[in-house]
């Protein structure tokens, strides 16, 4: 597991504490019942704070899963 993955998993666990660690990499806004608009805002704020980035509002609709956010972070890193 890369450093980015473990840090992103920590963000997800903080916002969705009931989500089991095994389910984090496959988490989506459809599969996690607690993934509502408020928690979406919180998740993205936590990610921005953790990775020191700013996520543009127009990106939000595309970031509805762990994998999508992971790919976004990889792209920003490059």
């Amino acid at each position, binding site marked *: 597991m890369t450093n980015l993955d473990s840090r992103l998993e920590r*963000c997800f666990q*903080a916002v969705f504490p009931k989500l089991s660690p095994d389910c984090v990499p496959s988490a989506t806004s459809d599969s996690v019942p607690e993934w509502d608009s408020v928690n979406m*805002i*919180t998740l993205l704020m936590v990610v921005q704070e*953790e990775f020191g980035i700013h996520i543009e509002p127009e990106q939000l609709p595309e970031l509805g899963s762990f994998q999508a956010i992971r790919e976004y972070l990889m792209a920003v890193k490059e």
Partner: protein
Amino acid sequence: MKLIKALELVNSAASGLREFRIFLACGFTPLHLETFLAAEGRLASMQVSVLTGSYGDVVGNIEKLSASGADAGCVIVEYPDLDPRLGIRRCSGWTHKDYADVLRTVAASAERIIEATDRAAQVMPLCVLMPTLSILPFAHTPLSQTSSFEAQLALLGAQMSARLACSPQVRVVSQRRIDELSSAERFDMASELAAGFPYTVAHASAVAEVIGSVLFRCTPKKGIITDLDDTLWQGIVGEVGINGVSWDLEHGAQVHGMYQQLLHCFAQEGVLVGAASKNSPEMIDKVFECRSDLLLPGTDVFPVAAHWGRKSESVSEILRKWNIGDDDVLFVDDSPLELAEVKSVHPGVECIRFPRQNPEKYLEFWKTLRGYFGKPLIREEDAIRLRTIRDSSVFSEQLQANSPSPDEFLKDLRAELIFGLSVEPTDTRALELINKTNQFNLNGQRHTESSLRTALRAPGAFMLTTGYRDKFGPLGKIAVLQGQVAGSTVSIDSWVMSCRAFSRRIEFACLRQLFEQFRAETVTLAYVATNRNSPIREFLQVFKCDVTKPARISRDIFRECCPRLFHKIVIQQNEDHVAHLIEVSASS
């Protein structure tokens, strides 16, 4: 605190933590502020749940406080709460021609908020935070110039703070402290538009930290022990003489003068001030006697432990005379060696270095001391505390000298007990006694304002406070009993008495008062042994109580075992309440 850290704290296991509910009355979506507040509660070892109201209705939310069942309320006001035209979520096309109308609306909203807050504060402890976000650039003036409109808005906000701060039940959160912790960008425009939450994460964290320190504050320390040479004054008095020590600007010693002034303020606020110095006692006596320009008079300091032994011995002596624990005390010295020596013997004492040669560090030192001793209110008892400690010391010496005939000594005291019966949960002195007394404490139970209020609403509930004075002077309010009356039985849930009041048989007089006031046949006491309450255990054993369980004392046993009492009794009570209690007891 980072948001991820706050979330992890809030989500961590909470077993054994005291529950504490806060009603957050604000006009915006609380979002991350709610998380940070709960996290601050965890740092104070509490499981905090945050209740909230409706978006955009701060007055309505304040009015919900009373019925919310919360333990405390927190009111946050931002400018859009006073007039939505001062926010960005509603555009009404207003211009400078509408300034007067905006100011009228703000003034009217301010009145409604003040009235609602005052009403809510009668029911629960409240803190209020006035606008922390800048007025947005609606005014016509250049950015570097304040307009009359902005100045009047700021004035209305300041007037609100001033009026609310006058209420003893309301704590106005310090803007100065917010400014210290939140200097970066505070307003998050994107978040305000998207979610109705106007704060940046960093600002929300700072706001929660300051609110937390108001709502979850630790009990202030009771005493400060100060070094003298190069701390209270500049110079070593044994080397430069009484007139050679200084504390003014002319001698480059102004920080010492400021420190003396601070300790003088502390003494007037009820903090015990003692001195520990490696000096001859005669020399120190002469300084206090001859230097009339001292900003900390000798009457503010007791005791002064001046000798050539270790400072830790001085601290021990002072703690004995004050009769308080080492974790209630701060020690200030300019020498790291002395600080380390005292800390090694008294690990509970907070040891702080006086910034003698670093005046740039004095402000931080000053704030640190204020942090340890700050209190929301100053009461009559605070002003007389040091004098009563000094008088108690004289009392104890005379009691020991008269040990063959304590009855004669006590009779000669001309002691007076002032009993007050109330259900007034806002008696802050009573609450302070319940939460700070360890030795004569029935069971160690502590109360918040809210839990005491709840206890006093029970049928037959009462709170009996005891004030004392004798020929040595007043001790102020020194004991509190809280319980219920049911039939011919009085049940005591809490009983505390200040250690300054020992050896005067006041506790016997309190028990006698219960039998007489309520015509009781039995008094039961919810005694639980703690690490420090041996004095009350010894008292109960006088009445042959089994101290492995709650105690029962019958009127007959009391009469048999009670020693002679010589107090003059003065009753201050609400006659209606006494009549009601007697009526409740008769019908039970």
